[in-house]
């Protein structure tokens, strides 16, 4: 079973990738691919590749609400008894997977970058410690949950838009008496610059060490005439606004050139930039995961490299 994610009008791209993976696993296990679609029955037609779409409608499910989703999914899991529940490793996966794992009594593996069937057992490779260590795990028993990293799996060839069987399930009792409610949805501030439209980005990570040092990378970005962007720790520290964040909780970018300075390459960051045409990475740690996706890399210290670059760009 795949949990479909949607923003109201559209099923997310990651959901298509999850369905594609689920289909591959279902074929190996001789089963079917089911998709749980909560709150928006009308989007069922977008779920190409599903054999069965299970929908539940209720006002509390119109937007993602943790408690409403959790109760509904627990009901569906009990009723449908899937071998495996696949979720994205984004906000909803981080919010729900572990709670479902406890309540459904299923083994869970998070931040999965590979998932396969070996002799009827579900095995996964998960990334931990910022992608510096890969862990091979087995999900024992008859039920399991995996949250899949974004940007790693392919949507592949979309299956033809054959009609899946759509099963409408009544919402669980209790959705009218939840311990939380959605007050409002706040759309993102568009910010001063849309980094997703830039031809090139100078992007800075934890390796910049302090706010004072931001000046030298800002100087390089200015010399090149391109925007400055950042990985999450720099934004969390308040050194750049949220609108400049690249990654899972920021923006996904695909510039012609992405210059990563002092970015180690945590999976959440790679999700946002791995499709850039040319990735240049500077990190003093030769084992940094960023070198796994970069086309060119260097372990020269950014504090030595950046002033040289500024000088040469300015001629």
């Amino acid at each position: 079973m795949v949990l479909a994610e949607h923003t109201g009008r559209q099923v997310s791209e990651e959901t298509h990738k999850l369905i594609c993976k689920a289909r591959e696993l279902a074929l190996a296990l001789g089963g079917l691919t089911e998709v749980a679609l909560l709150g928006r029955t009308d989007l069922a037609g977008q779920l190409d590749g599903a054999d069965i779409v299970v929908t539940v409608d209720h006002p509390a499910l119109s937007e993602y609400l943790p408690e409403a989703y959790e109760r509904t999914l627990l009901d569906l899991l009990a009723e449908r008894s899937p071998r495996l529940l696949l979720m994205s490793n984004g906000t909803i996966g981080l919010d729900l997977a572990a709670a479902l794992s406890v309540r459904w009594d299923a083994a869970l593996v998070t931040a999965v970058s590979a998932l396969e069937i070996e002799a009827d057992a579900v095995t996964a490779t998960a990334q931990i410690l910022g992608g510096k260590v890969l862990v091979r795990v087995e999900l024992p028993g008859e039920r399991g949950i995996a949250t899949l990293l974004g940007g790693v799996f392919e949507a592949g060839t979309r299956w033809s838009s054959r009609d899946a069987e759509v099963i409408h399930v009544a919402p669980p009792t209790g959705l009218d008496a939840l311990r939380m409610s959605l007050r409002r949805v706040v759309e993102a501030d568009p910010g001063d610059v849309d980094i997703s439209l830039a031809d090139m980005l100078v992007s800075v990570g934890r390796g910049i060490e302090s706010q004072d040092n931001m000046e030298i990378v800002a100087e390089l970005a200015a010399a090149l005439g391109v925007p400055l962007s950042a990985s999450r720790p720099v934004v969390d520290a308040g050194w750049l606004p949220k609108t400049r964040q690249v990654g899972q909780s920021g923006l996904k970018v695909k510039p012609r050139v992405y210059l990563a300075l002092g970015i180690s390459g945590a999976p959440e960051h790679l999700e946002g930039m791995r499709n850039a045409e040319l990735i240049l990475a500077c990190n003093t740690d030769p084992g940094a995961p960023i070198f796994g996706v970069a086309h060119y890399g260097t372990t020269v210290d950014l504090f030595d490299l950046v002033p040289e670059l500024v000088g040469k760009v300015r001629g």
Partner: protein
Amino acid sequence: MRIVVPLKPVPDLVEEIDLNADRTGIDREYLTFVLGEWDAQALEEALLIKDAGGAEVVTVGLAHDLEIDQILYTALAKGADVAVKLTDAAGAVPPGPAGIRIADRAALLAGYLAAQPADLVISGVQAADDLDGQLPPTLAALLDLPHVSVAVSVEVDGSSVIVRQEFAAGRLHELQVQMPAVIGVQSARQAPRYAPITRIRQAMQAGGLITCAVSPLPTRAGAVVRGMHRPEANHQAEMLTGSAGDVADQIVGLLRARGLVQR
């Protein structure tokens, strides 16, 4: 109001990380452990709530965790009111096969919270070494409490909290959540405060870490670790070498070839 903030040390990701001999866990012997970055954000958010309207902030670690004393004293120096180290009834906590099972950690913390309930539990949304899930939803499920993760602000409003939950590209859901509740913090409303070394030393001299033996709550089945490896095989970058000037020349050449540098 009582806010419990679980704190967990994680390996400092700046350092190289080695695996143990049988490749089922990381080699902890020479690693530096630091407070997880999301836990630091969670502590800051709890302290902001205390600053705004008063609350008792209780930081809780597991006694066997490396560097936990230093982390708890630093939390006290920042403004936490109480620091607790948990052990099991035998006075020790086995670290588990790879030292990374959230299920075992959550079971112990849930045992503590069942005995000494909190109005709010505020934890980092995740830890760098999470493998079998994240702490906040695991704890919430064990305690049957409402929970919200990936929070970027938590503010008290009577008997509930207003939580902003972040989605991709900065979209936010503003939720009203009845207390008691468990919140997983992605980032605090401001950068974590700094604790001067003199104040940390004062906290250490004053002592005051409380050791508490608890009975873990029963928890769920877990994934079985078959092995670990480092991702060298994925290394694909062509490495540019030489002095900083040499590397800069090569990078400028690549940019010039794409018309991004004119001169």
